[in-house]
């Protein structure tokens, strides 16, 4: 099926694909982002004799490869169950974006043929809206974010990807930096705004760009590219974007950077 799709694939990296193709590729990237979380620590599973995790990761990888060749069909449920097992069994240490990937893929596990439907798009849109509103509310009530304390804490951590935050202080000490307080407030307001836009089903290009810029900006500073890859792929589905191949090359790059860690990638470039 994939081979068939590539025959009708666009001519350049910037020509939009059809929506069905974009949705399918986005689902592949959400699936691979979830799978990579387990593949990168596969050695640990062997070291710690977690053979059930090994088995489920191998089954998930094989089911994923099958869906690449045959398309997302009723067998996709095997991938879903295999990836859900380690996430749910080890729920105490599972990353939040693995739970998000599970939420996003759940309807497809039972209804794979509806991948291009408006029902699935609006489900993804609402789920992302919930994430944004919840994350903004948590920042609001935490008592450490609106006053800039958390960004100051991040900026004084010294990692290369956190340097843009200290750069915004223009030579001021990060602990006394007012700019970080304003950025904290702006990011909460921004996150609420895009959350509301998503929940009211706004699919305007400006809403898409506002969300994309937020996701990529936050992802860069916090070194959470796996989360951002899931978010960008989900945005393509949520806004029913006929994304050009270059967009998927970008998502693949995000996952590659996440694989090595943004700090070590930047250090490699800067040397």
């Amino acid at each position, binding site marked *: 099926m994939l081979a068939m799709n590539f025959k009708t694939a666009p001519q350049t990296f910037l020509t939009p694909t059809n929506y069905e193709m974009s949705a399918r590729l986005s689902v592949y990237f959400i699936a691979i982002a979830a799978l990579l979380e387990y593949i990168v620590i596969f050695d640990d599973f062997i070291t710690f004799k977690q053979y059930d995790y090994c088995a489920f990761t191998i089954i998930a990888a094989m089911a994923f490869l099958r869906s690449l060749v045959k398309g997302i069909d009723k067998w996709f449920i095997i991938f879903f169950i295999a990836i859900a097992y380690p996430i749910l069994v080890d729920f105490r*240490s599972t990353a939040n974006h693995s739970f998000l990937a599970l939420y996003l893929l759940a309807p497809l596990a039972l209804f794979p043929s509806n991948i291009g439907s408006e*029902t699935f798009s609006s489900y993804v849109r609402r789920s992302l809206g919930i994430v944004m509103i919840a994350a903004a509310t948590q920042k609001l009530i935490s008592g450490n974010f609106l006053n800039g304390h958390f960004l100051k804490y991040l900026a004084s951590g010294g990692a290369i990807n956190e340097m843009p935050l200290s750069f915004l202080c223009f030579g001021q000490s990060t602990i006394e930096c007012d700019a970080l307080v304003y950025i904290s407030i702006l990011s909460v307001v921004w996150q609420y705004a895009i959350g509301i836009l998503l929940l009211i089903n706004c699919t305007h290009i400006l809403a898409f760009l506002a969300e994309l810029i937020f996701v990529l900006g936050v992802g860069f500073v916090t070194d959470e590219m796996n989360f951002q890859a899931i978010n960008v792929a989900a945005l393509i589905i949520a806004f029913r974007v006929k994304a050009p191949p270059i967009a998927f090359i970008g998502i693949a790059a995000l996952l590659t950077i996440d694989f090595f860690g943004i700090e070590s990638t930047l250090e490699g470039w800067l040397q």
Partner: protein
Amino acid sequence: MNDAMNKISQSERIMKKLCWALIALHVGWVCTHMYFHHKGALNPWKLGGYAMYTKPGPVYSIRTFKEQENSEEMIRSKRYFYSHFFVTGGCLSGVSKRFYKKIDIFQPQLLEVGKTVKIVFRERNLPMLEKDRREHSTYKNIGQATLNLQENGIMTVEEEFCDKKREFSIHVR
């Protein structure tokens, strides 16, 4: 053709109901997480909530002591960034059994038949706005466990977390 279209719309109708159920589940859990996190009872970085990047993730550490002749010797002090530990209201309320299995794999010489190993669990409090914050960090004991390996490879674990005591056995070898 009409049958096929009906079938598609029927499957989409069922999918729509599933989607609403999942959205309700998502909202329900997010609100629950928010409530318990605000009460200080849940790890903000874990468990499918979205409170990461609102405060530093909790850092736990363990200190391992091994019984010697009339004394105890500290064998190891190790930090854990991610949670094998379930902390509610500032007290340890659960440790994954995998954690105890990993102790044996990390340090095969640690567990000896007839010798008690004690683990003290601690939570690190890192001040956010101190310049030398690592030097200003403080530790709070949140529980302890005693491990006893038997000859048949079964380890008995006695956990003491705040005012709760629990005893169980796991197969480690």
